[in-house]
Structures are given as C-alpha cells and as structure tokens.
C-alpha cells in the first residue's frame, strides 16, 4: 500500500482525477473549491494535460461538453452559485449522453449566500439540476479518502453509463486534511465508438447532439435513458450502515453531517440509547431499500442535514410513513453540533416529546 499523505479534500479530488486519467480540466475559481483548480493549474502542464481557467462557469461546462464528445475523461468543479450557472450545460450533457465529472463543494445559499459549508444543493443535484427529464450519478464523500475514491469511481461510472457523475461535497470536506492513500489500479476506460474522433474516411460521422425535433424520437430517447436509470438504481446504490444491527433510532446523514452524527451516536449509546446511522454514499440513486428495511424495525428516523430539510423528503418516501421522521439541521453555512444531534436522538427516543 502506498504511503499515506495528508491532503485537503479538494487536492485529493484533483490528484485522484489525474490518476484516473483525466487530462482536461476547465473551471472558474470560487471558494471553497478553489484548491481543485489551483492543483490542476500546477499539475496539468507537467503531465501534458490541459488546465484552462474559463471566462465563466458557463464557458467551462461547455468546454467539458466539447472534450466529453471526443471521449476523453474531463471534469469541472465549482461551488453552489457556480453550479447553478452550469445547469444548462448539465442538461445538454445528459441530453447528449456524455460522460463527465462535475464537482460541487457546496456553500451556504441561496443567492451568492456565504462561503461556509452547506448541503443545500441536494435537491438541485438529485432532482433538478436543470430542464428536462434526467439524472446525474450523485456521490457524497464523507472523508478525504472518499473524496479521492469517489472521484475515481465517478469517472468509471460516468464512462460506464455515459452520464455525468457529480461529487456532492461541502466546504468542510474540501478544506479539511486527512490521511489519504492514492493507491489505485485504474482499468482502461471502455471503448467509446460514439466519440467524435475523426472518421479518417473509414466510418460514418458520429454526431453528438441533444436536439430531437420529432417528439416520437425524443420520447424514445427519454424512455431509453430511464431504462438505464432503472438499471443503475438496481445496481449502483451505495451506502454505509453504522451500528444499525440493534438500532432503535436511525439517523440518516451524508457527508460532514454523517460524521457529526457518528459522534452523537457514540454519546447516545453511552446514555443507553441504541442509535445507528445509514449514510447514503450515492444520493442518486438513493438507498431506498435499506431505509425501507430500517423503517420496519426502528422506532424513529432522524434526517441530519446542513439544509432546511431536503434529503428528508426522500427519507420519508423510502420509509413509507411507518415511523416518525424528524429533521435535525442547521443552514446557511452552520453545522449541527454533536450535542444538537444527541438531543434530537433523545427526543426521538422519547417519542418526539421534548
């Protein structure tokens, strides 16, 4: 195993992307993800790659579209307001079935908001990145190691399914340093016979396009895409279960919130309350089945979020009303404390009575 080094989450994403074979990065600086761009600016020229600071986020995502069309691994990164600007491009990538990696190191919103950590782009990432019927694969790292691991995984899934993978991180994940091991065996990317690589007069033109003016044809494209989504939901869902074996109170949390939740669970267990955690690693596809199963045996579920309550809607859908689902949250760049989460566990254990 390779030596462990301390890296910032943002740097770990950048280095893992390079290891995964990404040689094209386009972006525009924004706190708290700027280290991704800074790292790429330093490294890409040394390895024959391309770092380009675009004139805007919109330009950057369209450069991603261009490189993705040629079949090369490509990425962009930003933080919340910048991701909103990329929305149109994300829809076009989906409509043209192009693989790409997009990183969102979230900050508080709405609007220009603030620069402190947040998870309030959950809806945007999992349900409504832009117009039209489409999904992205949404991966939610909860450690610096996972920032790297899920970047590699994100490229692999993107190529496998010809989709955009989004890393949905937050300011804490981007800024913190933890030990990382970047010891990957990278499989060669799959053949991309659809890529626009030049016909050399030996084949028909490949056309990358998201415009289908005949509604019957466009509907067919949508139906095909949703068959693929169904397959992904059945095969690519990832989650971690933590102390769920005997749990009576089930927390659901991802990213930094999951780490705070783990602290609170240790405290709750010391106080004799059997709490556990389901940590979605893929937010789309959402781990519905494991939450449904949990709802058949626990007393209550708590959704812990750095937002006004977004993932809780998916938790409610998955648990089908069997048990009470409550929200434990902070917003706008604030992070719930372990104490706050512990109190939510105690309240839930008392049947919601404070």
């Amino acid at each position, binding site marked *: 195993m390779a030596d*462990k*080094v*301390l890296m910032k989450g943002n740097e770990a994403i950048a280095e893992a992307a390079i290891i995964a074979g990404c040689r094209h990065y386009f972006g525009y600086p924004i*706190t*708290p993800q700027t280290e991704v761009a800074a790292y790429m600016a330093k490294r890409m020229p040394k390895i024959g790659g391309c770092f380009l600071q675009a004139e805007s986020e919109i330009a950057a995502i369209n450069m991603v579209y261009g490189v993705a069309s040629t079949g090369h691994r490509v990425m962009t990164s930003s933080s919340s307001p910048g991701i909103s600007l990329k929305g149109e491009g994300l829809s076009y990538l989906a409509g043209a079935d192009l693989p790409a990696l997009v990183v969102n190191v979230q900050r508080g919103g709405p609007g220009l908001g603030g*620069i*402190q950590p947040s998870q309030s782009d959950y809806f945007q990432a999992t349900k409504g990145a832009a117009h039209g019927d489409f999904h992205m694969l949404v991966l939610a790292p909860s450690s610096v190691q996972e920032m790297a691991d899920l970047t590699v995984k994100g490229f692999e899934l993107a190529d496998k399914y010809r989709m955009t993978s989004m890393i949905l991180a937050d*300011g*804490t994940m981007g*800024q*913190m*340093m*933890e*030990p990382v091991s970047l010891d990957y065996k990278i499989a060669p990317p799959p053949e991309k016979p659809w890529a626009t690589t030049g016909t050399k007069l030996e084949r028909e033109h490949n056309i990358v396009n998201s415009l289908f003016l005949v509604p019957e044809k466009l509907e067919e494209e949508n139906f095909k895409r949703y068959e693929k989504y169904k397959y992904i939901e059945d095969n690519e869902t990832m989650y971690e279960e933590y102390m769920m074996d005997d749990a009576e109170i089930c927390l659901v949390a991802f990213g*930094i919130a999951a*780490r*705070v939740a*783990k*602290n609170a669970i*240790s405290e709750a267990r010391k106080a004799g309350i059997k709490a556990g955690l389901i940590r979605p690693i893929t937010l789309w596809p959402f781990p519905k089945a494991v939450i449904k199963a949990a709802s058949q045996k626990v007393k209550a579920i708590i959704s812990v979020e750095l937002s006004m309550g977004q993932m809780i809607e998916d938790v409610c859908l998955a648990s089908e009303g069997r048990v009470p689902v409550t929200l434990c949250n902070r917003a706008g760049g604030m*992070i719930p*404390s*372990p104490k706050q989460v512990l109190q939510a566990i105690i309240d839930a254990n008392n049947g919601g009575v404070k």
Partner: protein
Amino acid sequence: MSTTQFLFAGFGGQGILFSGKFLAYKGLTEDKQVSWLPSYGPEMRGGTASCSVIISDTPVGSPIVSNPDVLVAMNLPSLDRYEDAVVPGGTIYVDSTLIERKVRRTDVTVHYIPATRLANDNNMDTLANMIMVGKLLSEMNEFNEEGINAALSKVISARHADMLEFNLKALKIGSEN
C-alpha cells in the same frame, strides 16, 4: 483509547495552520488517526486564523473542534474567543509576549510562554508558533526527535530544507522553556 482535540488560534501570518499541520503529520507518522480543519475565507486575511486538529487512536468523527482539550492562543482575540470553550481539565498555551492578561479559568492548566520574544531573541521571528508547539509536545511527553524529524520533513518541502534545522531549534527552545 484516547482522542485529543486541539485548537490553534492567532492572526494570519503567525503560522497557525502550519503548526497544526505539523502536529497532524506527527500523529500520522505515529500511526494515529488525524484530521486538520482550517478556518477559511476572508477572516484568514489579517483577522483571526484558527485550525482544528484531532489526534486519536480511533477513527475521527466530526473534524470540527468546538471544545478543545488543548488551546494554543497566540493573540488576545483568540484567547478572548476560545478560553471558555476549553473543556474543564484542559490545557491552554498562551503566547505571553502578545497576550498580557492572565487566563481567568481556574479549572484548566495554563502555560505562559513568551514565544514571540524568544523567537525574536533567537533570530527566528516567524517561528513563535513552533516554540509554542515545542512546549506543548514536551508537556504532553510527546517530544521525541524521531517523530519530530519525520513530521518536519513532511511539512517542509525539499526546496526549503534549510528551514528544517530552524524549526527543530524552535521546537527545542519551546521544550526547554
């Protein structure tokens, strides 16, 4: 099984983030679980800088240190802001050159180190932070040169290898004070 939560705080330019990173690397070279989280944003430029470091025998949960076991305060605003957050029985290291007042808490251990003056006296103006860390390591019985050298070689790039000796000297000055 033990977990120690550190909070380093001072103003931008004092090497607050660097000293935290050094300590985290020292933990890493000794096979501990570690995390390092800086304050980021406009406050870094001229205002207060702080960083949370956790060193543990078990996986680190939240990397955010709200109630430190150990506070290293390198200016008055930092002591004012974080003194009450230290856990009862915790330890506060104060740069007594820059902080004239005494710690008001009576349920914590306090070490006053004139780190900035010691740094100036030894022609190492920028290394008051490492003098503080030297004291901290010696008080925690963690001052072993092997671990220190291993960590220093990780946080100081080869290009600045000449700084390694200076940092080691600063740590020693701190430990002997």
